[in-house]
């Protein structure tokens, strides 16, 4: 039994005290498995450290009448400058266990072979994970603490870990904290959500999960505050993945979409992927997923556009090839007639276009965000370079130069700009511009504003085709 009574944890920081856990109480009995969901920084890891005894609560008390593990698969518990074998010897001594027996188990489970006699600092992250997990299994704890498993190692290793943990040790108590809601759902018997230092327990996973989604602001149009925009489109494309996976709103949508995909609810899955991509339109791997869902749902126009977008954003063609070829075959076209444009890490104007670029240009030049599937696909197919695409869209009769926003109205705006406004500024703004990119993005509050603001900051400078098209426009109008 673990009895957590009115536990609070306060960390002193430079800016005063930070209350991480606020008066938390719960009991955990033998064999119970508690899953705790919570956003980044909600205090999940702090809770685990407190239960493990590595840290003491500021207020309240934690009594344990069963042995509790250290946070599982946690690599820090061993010493880098020692060999794997020395680490096993150390743990065996600390817990008064038979070293030879433990060594045999770790050798068998970790499959590290001769590497066990090398210093741990020479290990790859996968090897570390294997050693860490194997060492965690040598002590027979009554309760296992599991903190964010599953980032490393191959599928077979995961299976063996799951078998060892939930099969052979299925009778133990566990506290599992994770981003990965499906992991929590599959392995826990009790569920709780940690938010703003408060922990709320729920009877079943579904209610816990919907509360968690609500807490992290899905559907509430709340966006993470941007400090700085990427310097150019190349940076945007190449860093978007690492930014996106740290955004809880994004990961939860993706999780949701993955579940729907696994249940073959293709249309719903596609819509959910699209919602996630609205937050990070340049995240290429989920364009592939969206393409798969569209393909399975029979929406081949959308599938082809999505696959082409993925390639334009850097997804290797070989990975997409069979799906794209299947789709084009259904549409009775050939890649010879409509060549695929692969990502090039050059300046924005020479990079190939994907759906996000087409939509951005449509907002700026045509003042619309709604294009038909066919139209979208045509523009993506033709978008060998962004420069050419934009020129063709300026030459299009739908082009509207927009209305300049009143300057004093712009002064007041200090909130978070919309995703499309930020991305548009990243694309169009010359890197030499003096005005802060985020300030430019704030000036764009409506589609009508976009074009005048971009022209005002010398947007699309050096885009020769687009500039020529603008010239033609002004002559025709003038």
């Amino acid at each position, binding site marked *: 039994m673990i009895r957590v009574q009115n536990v609070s944890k306060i*960390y002193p920081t430079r800016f005063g005290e930070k209350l991480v856990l606020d008066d938390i109480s719960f009991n955990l009995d033998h064999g119970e498995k508690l899953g705790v969901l919570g956003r980044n920084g909600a205090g999940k890891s702090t809770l685990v*450290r407190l239960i*493990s*005894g*590595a*840290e*003491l609560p500021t207020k309240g008390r934690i*009594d*344990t*009448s*069963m*042995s*509790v593990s*250290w*946070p599982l698969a*946690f690599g*820090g*518990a061993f*010493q880098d*400058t*020692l060999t794997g074998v*020395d680490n096993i*010897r*150390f*743990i065996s*001594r*600390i*817990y*008064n266990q038979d070293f030879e027996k433990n060594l045999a188990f770790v050798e068998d489970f970790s499959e590290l072979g001769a590497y066990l006699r090398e210093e741990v600092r020479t290990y790859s992250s996968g090897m570390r994970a294997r050693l860490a997990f194997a060492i965690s299994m040598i*002590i*027979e*704890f009554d309760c296992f603490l599991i903190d964010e498993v599953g980032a490393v190692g191959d599928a077979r290793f995961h299976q063996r870990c799951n078998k060892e943990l939930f099969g052979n040790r299925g009778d133990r108590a566990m506290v599992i904290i994770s981003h990965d809601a499906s992991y929590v759902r599959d392995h826990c018997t009790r569920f709780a959500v940690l938010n703003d230092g408060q922990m709320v327990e729920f009877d079943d996973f579904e209610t816990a999960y919907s509360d968690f989604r609500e807490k992290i602001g899905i559907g509430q149009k709340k966006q993470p505050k941007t400090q700085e925009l990427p310097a150019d489109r190349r940076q945007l494309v190449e860093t978007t993945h690492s930014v996106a996976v740290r955004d809880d709103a994004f990961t939860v949508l993706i999780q949701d979409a993955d579940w729907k995909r696994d249940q073959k609810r293709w249309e719903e899955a596609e819509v959910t992927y699209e919602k996630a991509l609205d937050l990070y339109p340049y995240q290429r791997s989920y364009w592939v997923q969206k393409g798969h869902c569209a393909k399975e749902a029979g929406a081949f126009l959308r599938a082809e556009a999505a696959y082409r977008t993925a390639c334009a954003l850097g997804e290797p063609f070989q990975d997409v090839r069979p799906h794209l070829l299947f789709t084009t075959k259904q549409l009775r076209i050939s890649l010879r007639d409509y060549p695929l444009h692969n990502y090039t890490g050059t300046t924005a104007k020479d990079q190939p276009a994907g759906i996000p670029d087409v939509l951005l240009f449509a907002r700026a030049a045509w003042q619309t965000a709604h294009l038909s599937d066919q139209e979208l696909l045509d523009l993506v197919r033709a978008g060998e370079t962004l420069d050419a695409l934009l020129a063709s869209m300026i030459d299009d009769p739908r082009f509207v130069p927009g209305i300049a926003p009143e300057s004093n109205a712009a002064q007041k705006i200090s909130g978070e700009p919309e995703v499309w406004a930020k991305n548009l500024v990243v694309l169009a703004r010359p890197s030499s511009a003096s005005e802060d990119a985020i300030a430019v993005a704030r000036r764009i509050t409506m589609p009508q504003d976009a074009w005048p603001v971009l022209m005002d900051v010398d947007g699309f400078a050096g885009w020769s085709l687009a500039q020529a098209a603008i010239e033609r426009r002004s002559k025709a109008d003038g």
Partner: protein
Amino acid sequence: MASTSSDRPSLRESLGIQGRVIGALLIRETLTRYGRHNIGFLWLFVEPMIFTLGVTALWTATKSVHGSALPIVAFALTGYSSVLLWRNMPGRCIGALTANSNLLYHRNIKALDIYIARILLEFGGATISFFALSLVFISIDWLAPPEDFLTVVGGWLIISCFGASLAITLGALSYLNELVDKFWHPASYLLFPLSGAGFIVAALPPFAQKVVLWIPMVHGVEMVRDGYFGSQARAIYDLGYVIPFTLALAASALMLARYVSKRLVPG
């Protein structure tokens, strides 16, 4: 079975756990610091021996004045070995928690165990070095055997206890404030000439004697020399000062260690 139950184990069990943990930490610390390459853990005392030999050679060459008739070799050996004792223990304990905080995930390891393991290692190294060099010098007749062995041991233990208390105090303070680390280095250099390593108290003018006798390690060094040379030189020390001082420091060390372990945040 891991003993992490809240049912209090008996004192004997507790001592058993404590002994096992400190033993494991000692071995781990030795392996981490000296590895298995070349002479391995022999470095534990070879390193302080090289230091002491170097200083002995230097002082002999420069014919350092220390104000007594004692041979310089004997003087350097007793003086510098004591410096190693009180200087290296704090040096090892400062920052020890930050570097090892991950160990605290093992329920049986406490902050104090980490300090104790490091202090024992330093104590062992300095003691073996002092003992081995004494034997070597005695066997080649550079040094007479100590007149009163137990007084030497007593003085040595007093310096060790002082060094250990200082080490835990500074180690715990260094977790709270990194300035401790910055100040300890200059402070230990400045204390070195004042610590009794380079003079004997009796040779100082009366005013200076009063001042240096405020410094606790001076008493320990004097006591070690008292045991070694006894009749040849007059040693001045006051157990009535240094023992209460060390006990008070030890009490504050334990309180600080407890204060810090309540506020530890493992990495």
